[in-house]
């Protein structure tokens, strides 16, 4: 179906021109020491979100930069109306530096520092006052129509089983193709879980430079296992993957690559980096579910599709995560966490294309405000891909 024939979606237009499908006020702690304070503010003020983490201090070089880029990317995500950046005061990831970058996006940004305000209670009071005003301002913003070409959809599989590559992942691949055809962006991630399938994606690269990058990021990821002197299989596939029938990383990867559909690979971006091209884009992330989810959301994804065979509660504080079961048994067992069942493909009662269409329909409803299971359960996961030691 051509983009102009589809019903428009509704979202929140941001000052930088991006469109959000949620209207959160983010309490962004740049340092682990401020995460508890941030949590208290979200308990006081409805409409705010935050996340717990252990980073933001004693980090240097590329590791500092990647963490900084992730914080800024999360704040800039168009699902965020405004940000209260919360620091302690003495950390390496200064709240003021992060806020400075966020202000360039033109959205409301304020800084609260625990040391400047004289302690935890004072910082909570100040942060909550600012957040409460932002939430009221956010609630006054009207939604406007937009089309699929402004969507960035993240794709991910976690807790995979042998059905993942036969049902839910190909269905997400069909959705990825459709979003690309409508002018939007689909992010493929989890470099670790593409080891053994990289040649298939390199063949689809838009140019030689992208193909070269495919082999580079795969080799860099594989070299990390070599440097540790371990069989990557001791960590991936996981015990649950193996119980589900997956034997090797290559087998898991070939199933995971099905999420990427069949369209050309336009770009390969770094972790937490926003794609500058539309179409199918690969983000270099680890296979760790939460680290890749956080990377894609920091890269601007407004919504994430997450397939699972073993079942998982995964969610994001910022982007709705739609979870898709690879088999009917896990869908029935974990209905409270899983939104869509693709197990019908295994049973032969629906085709890959039919399930793909159901996922598109659910994306439309989610953009219009329907809550995903992970949103309802406030599954506000955050994981950061650290690439250097803590000093």
């Amino acid at each position, binding site marked *: 179906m051509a983009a102009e024939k589809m019903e428009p979606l509704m979202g929140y237009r941001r000052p930088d021109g991006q469109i959000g499908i949620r209207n959160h006020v983010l309490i962004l702690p740049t340092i682990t020491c401020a995460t508890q304070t941030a949590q208290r503010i979200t308990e006081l003020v409805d409409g705010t979100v935050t996340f717990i983490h252990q980073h933001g201090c004693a980090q240097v070089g590329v590791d500092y930069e990647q963490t900084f880029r992730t914080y800024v990317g999360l704040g800039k995500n168009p699902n965020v109306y405004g940000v209260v950046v919360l620091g302690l005061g003495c950390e390496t990831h200064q709240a003021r530096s992060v806020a400075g970058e966020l202000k360039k996006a033109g959205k409301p940004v304020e800084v609260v520092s625990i040391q400047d305000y004289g302690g935890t209670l004072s910082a909570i009071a100040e942060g909550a006052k600012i957040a409460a005003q932002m939430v009221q301002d956010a609630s006054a913003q009207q939604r406007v129509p937009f089309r699929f070409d402004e969507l960035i959809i993240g794709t991910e599989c976690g807790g995979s089983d*042998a059905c993942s590559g036969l049902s839910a992942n190909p269905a997400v691949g069909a959705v990825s193709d459709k979003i690309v055809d409508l002018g939007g962006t689909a992010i493929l991630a989890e470099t670790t879980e593409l080891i053994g399938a990289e040649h298939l994606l390199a063949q689809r690269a838009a140019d030689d430079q992208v193909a070269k990058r495919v082999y580079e990021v795969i080799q860099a990821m594989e070299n990390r296992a070599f440097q540790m002197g371990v069989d990557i299989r001791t960590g991936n596939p996981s015990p649950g993957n193996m119980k589900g029938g997956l034997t090797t990383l290559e087998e898991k990867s070939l199933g995971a690559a099905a999420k990427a559909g069949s369209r050309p690979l336009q770009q390969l971006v770094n972790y937490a980096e926003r794609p500058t091209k539309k179409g199918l884009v690969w983000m270099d992330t680890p296979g760790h579910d939460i680290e890749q989810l956080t990377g894609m959301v920091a890269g601007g994804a407004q919504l994430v599709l997450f397939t699972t065979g073993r079942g998982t509660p995964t969610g994001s504080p910022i982007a709705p995560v739609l979870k898709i079961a690879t088999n009917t048994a896990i869908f029935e067992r974990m209905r409270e966490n899983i939104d869509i069942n693709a197990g019908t493909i295994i049973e032969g009662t629906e085709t890959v294309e039919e399930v793909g269409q159901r996922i598109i329909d659910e994306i439309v409803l989610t953009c219009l405000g329907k809550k995903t299971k992970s949103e309802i359960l406030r599954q506000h996961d955050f994981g950061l891909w650290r690439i250097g030691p803590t000093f």
Partner: protein
Amino acid sequence: MDSRKQALMLKAADSVAVALRKLEKGSVVSVFFQERMFQIVLKDSIEFGHKFAVVPMRKGDDVRKYGEVIGMASRDIAVGEHVHVHNVEGKRGRGDKIGRRENGTAHGLSAP
């Protein structure tokens, strides 16, 4: 995929098929590949989603699924046997194999 199917083979080059339901040891399973169907006697019980051999494999042979290499047989495998971690090992990300190969390199890593 048809609900009557017990197992599925994905590509002509594949050495394994995937069980679409729990299959009992000793049973005769019909494996479908596109319009073709052939029968295999199972030497093991196969759990839902697990694999069994549709061709005999020698130790060291590539194991194929999706038409691609998913690993290497770590011992001889007969038709109808469960194919999993006990008789297949991955070839990628094998940091444990560094320095143990004849040419002293692992896949994807150039010699020092």
